């Protein structure tokens, strides 16, 4: 007997579960970035290369989940949140994986070593930014409860509070990034100008990890407020 039963075919695949899965993989990409800098600090080219490969692999996995989810989100689905908002959250999440990949690529291609004066500060900065990603992931993991509550009520308030904390944590990384750039500026003359340029870029990209993580939260807030 065929199974195109009205009740059975009424339920589409839960897109929030895919969104959570995607965010987990994206944050796994970010998770490997501190190790990348640790290896670079010890000038361990092989380790950098190895971690880069792992990040590239994870990023590809994130892309796969993203594409599959987009594929399964036809307009005929009735969703509790705006379809566009959902896809935007997905895009921003994907940017986290992309930035991790860009950082890994750059460190590897230019065989960048970490200047002595930055060594003490870069890794804490990276870790702080990755920490923001984890906060963001924690918020995304709340989707089940949000859904049960219809994106309102206490659960909505709880998630909004978490988003506020997320914003504060991101502010901290902003300050750390500026501090780092100032240090770099002071030592510009001692370095190869091209390296200086790329280090500014790296600091920016590391900050982007936290930036995108924050944006994920802010996009999510839109779905609650509506």
């Amino acid at each position, binding site marked *: *007997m*065929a*199974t*195109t*039963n*009205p*009740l*059975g*075919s*009424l*339920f*589409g*695949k*839960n*897109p*929030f*579960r895919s969104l959570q899965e995607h965010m987990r993989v994206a944050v796994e990409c970010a998770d490997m970035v501190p190790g990348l800098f640790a290896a670079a600090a010890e000038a361990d080219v092989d380790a950098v290369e190895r971690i880069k490969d792992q990040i590239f692999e994870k990023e590809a996995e994130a892309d796969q989940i993203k594409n599959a989810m987009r594929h399964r989100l036809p307009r*005929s*689905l*009735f*969703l*509790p*949140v705006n379809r566009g908002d959902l896809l935007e959250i997905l895009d921003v999440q994907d940017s986290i994986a992309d930035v991790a990949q860009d950082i890994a690529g750059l460190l590897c291609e230019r065989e960048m070593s970490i200047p002595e004066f930055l060594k003490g500060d870069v890794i804490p900065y990276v870790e702080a930014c990755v920490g923001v990603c984890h906060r963001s992931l924690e918020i995304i993991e709340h989707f*089940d*409860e949000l*859904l*049960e*509550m*219809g*994106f*309102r*009520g*206490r*659960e909505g308030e709880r998630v909004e509070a978490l988003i506020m904390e997320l914003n504060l944590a991101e502010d901290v990384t902003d300050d750390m990034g500026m501090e780092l750039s100032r240090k770099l500026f002071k030592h510009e003359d001692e370095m190869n100008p091209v390296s200086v340029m790329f280090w500014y870029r790296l600091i920016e990209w590391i900050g982007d990890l936290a930036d995108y993580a924050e944006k994920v939260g802010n996009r999510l807030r839109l779905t609650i407020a509506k």
Partner: protein
Amino acid sequence: MDIIAIYGGWFIGLAALFGLYMTWGIGANDVANAMGTSVGSGAITVKQAIIIAAIFEFAGVVLAGGNVTETVRKGIVDHTVFIDSPELLIYGMLASLLAAGLWLMIASAKGWPVSTTHSIIGAVVGFALVGLGPDAVQWTKVWAIVASWVISPLVGGSIAFLIMISIRKLILNTDDPFQNAKKWGPIYVFFVGFLISLVTLFKGLKHLDIELTTLESFFWSAVIGGLVAFLGWYLIKDKQLDPEAEKDHKFDGVERVFAPMQVFTACAMAFAHGSNDVANGIGPLTAVVSIVESGGQVAQEAGLPLWILLLGGVGIVVGLSTMGYRVMKTIGKKITELTPTRGFSAELAAAATVVLASRTGIPVSTTHILVGAVLGVGLTRGIAALDMRVVGKIVLSWVVTLPIGAGLSALFFFILKAIFE
């Protein structure tokens, strides 16, 4: 008249056979829809669902199935047209059963979501319209039924929406959702028993020679509701919070409290389904039997003979246990998104709507009402993704089923007429 005297036994035999086939089909398809929700959430196993279905479908037919059966038997075609040639009504009812049965077989082989209700109503209208002309159809009743097919899913959806919102207000959006679930759970269960009983008891048991006053109806409904609530309380009283699962999903405990409560909505759905959909199979059969047994009288009042009710019940249970359990398993797997709180809301709303329709003698589609109820829960922003193409398919199946049911039945009508005359 002679024809009936000669072939009377044949007519009853054929009608019983076709009726059994229809109820078998209903059991194989529809019951699985009605109860799949409770199976999907793990509240009951497939085996338990079959046992519940056997008891409550039967109770539904006997206690509350009379009105819809009467509508199918004599509410759609104008019986006064047949006074001079009652055998035509027999051909028509047989043709309707054949047509609806055949169409359902084709549709389920193709996987089209066709409603048994729509098939049989279309078929009955069809033979009357083509075989005897538009005057033979009681159009006001037919339009009322068609309107109810649009209205009933909306009613089911609205009730489900309200129940879901109330669960949020009273239980989920509180300091201690788990304790509140245990506190309010029995009260929700009370309403399952109370609503279904009230609709059934209130001026509804005349055929069993039981006449209750309004007050008595309320009293006994409350008693039944109370008993059911006690059972519900007993089932959930020992539920404990699981801190590990709670970390993963904050409302895990609430859902585990609601899971056993879905046993009651499963019973209610089986009862509601029995009270409405079974009539699709036994309504035409009753018509044939009453004409044959009265020797050609068409307009008389006829009670529902017990053996017909039994046949309906047996057909359902056999259908469910031969094929329905597989459908039920498939559906159960597909609707895991319908957690116990959501499933409870949808089922209670659907069961109440169907029983209300049964009480007023309107044949509705249990499956469509359940789809409406699930959409109602979805409108509270409570379901991850609902595929609205289903609604389109349902409307399409309507548009196709009515004319095809009608056409097939008219065809069989002329064939039968040619055979016996």
